[in-house]
């Protein structure tokens, strides 16, 4: 597929929009469908698209396997960390009202934990994709 000009240019043009859309899905999750999980999958899809078109090594130079593995763990830490922060501020674990006056804290808390979900899902999806795509097949 790497020889096709249309595919190469198309992927190059589309990828930034896909990534922007993923971030939009995350940050707009309060108001519209979507959230961290979907956003993580969309970001991973952008990486997968680039890897399919430009080859795995080229993409792994930018988004290294080590980085995505760290992401998978980091997301869980972010999620749990938000809970710890609200506890330190004197509320229940994951009681987002601690983060700001009134209910505004809910916004920040939800964005925070959804960010954790996003980072984990992105890391996991790309890790799994790398593992599958990086293996040599019997039939190739």
């Amino acid at each position, binding site marked *: 597929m790497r020889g096709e000009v249309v595919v190469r240019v198309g992927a190059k043009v589309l990828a930034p929009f896909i990534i922007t859309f993923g971030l939009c899905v995350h940050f707009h999750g309060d108001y519209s469908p979507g959230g961290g999980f979907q956003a993580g999958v969309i970001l991973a899809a952008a990486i997968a698209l680039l890897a399919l078109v430009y080859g795995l*090594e080229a993409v792994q130079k930018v988004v290294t396997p080590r980085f995505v593995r760290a992401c998978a763990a980091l997301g869980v830490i972010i999620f749990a960390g938000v809970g710890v922060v609200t506890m330190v501020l004197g509320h229940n674990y994951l009681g987002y009202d601690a983060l700001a006056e009134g209910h505004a804290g809910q916004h920040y808390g939800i964005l925070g934990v959804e960010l954790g979900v996003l980072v984990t899902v992105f890391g996991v999806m790309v890790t799994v994709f790398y593992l599958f795509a990086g293996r040599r097949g019997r039939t190739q």
Partner: protein
Amino acid sequence: MLLTLLAAAGLALLRVRNLFAVVMLAGIYSLLSAGLFTVMDAVDVAFTEAAVGAGISTVLFLGALALCGHQENKPGHTPLLPLFVVLVTGGLLVWGTMDMPGFGDPANPVHHHVADHYIDESYHEIEIPNVVTSVLASYRGYDTMGETTVVFAAAVGVMILLAGRLGRRPRPEGKGDGG
């Protein structure tokens, strides 16, 4: 209409022996399910189904196909016993649904346990318009944290199974051409 297409895609999935076509049909099946969820106003679920079912898993299946070849082997046994088991299980499940309240009935207990509270009060309590997000991340924050951990654990499992040479450089002949 969508259900008919879903059934058609499902039957085609059973008949086709070329695994490449199977993967494509599975993607189409997911996309149709996403359409069905949209029709039922479950946009969040539809979104996830389209992104995960039709998007990422198709790519992963293609990656797996590159490893195992494109043609499914002929089954080495007659399908009668499995058919019998499937029919009995399906019959039991259908029998079980007889006790359930009518589908889509607004008086169902499931719609009156906590759903009323979420729909009526969540905007005052959480002040964000998307009820799905407020239930997912705030009311059910612990559950979502558990889910995130499960996703992470799944990745660890895949890594243990597939990446025997983690941390070392891939061997020179291990250059993937990315499918």
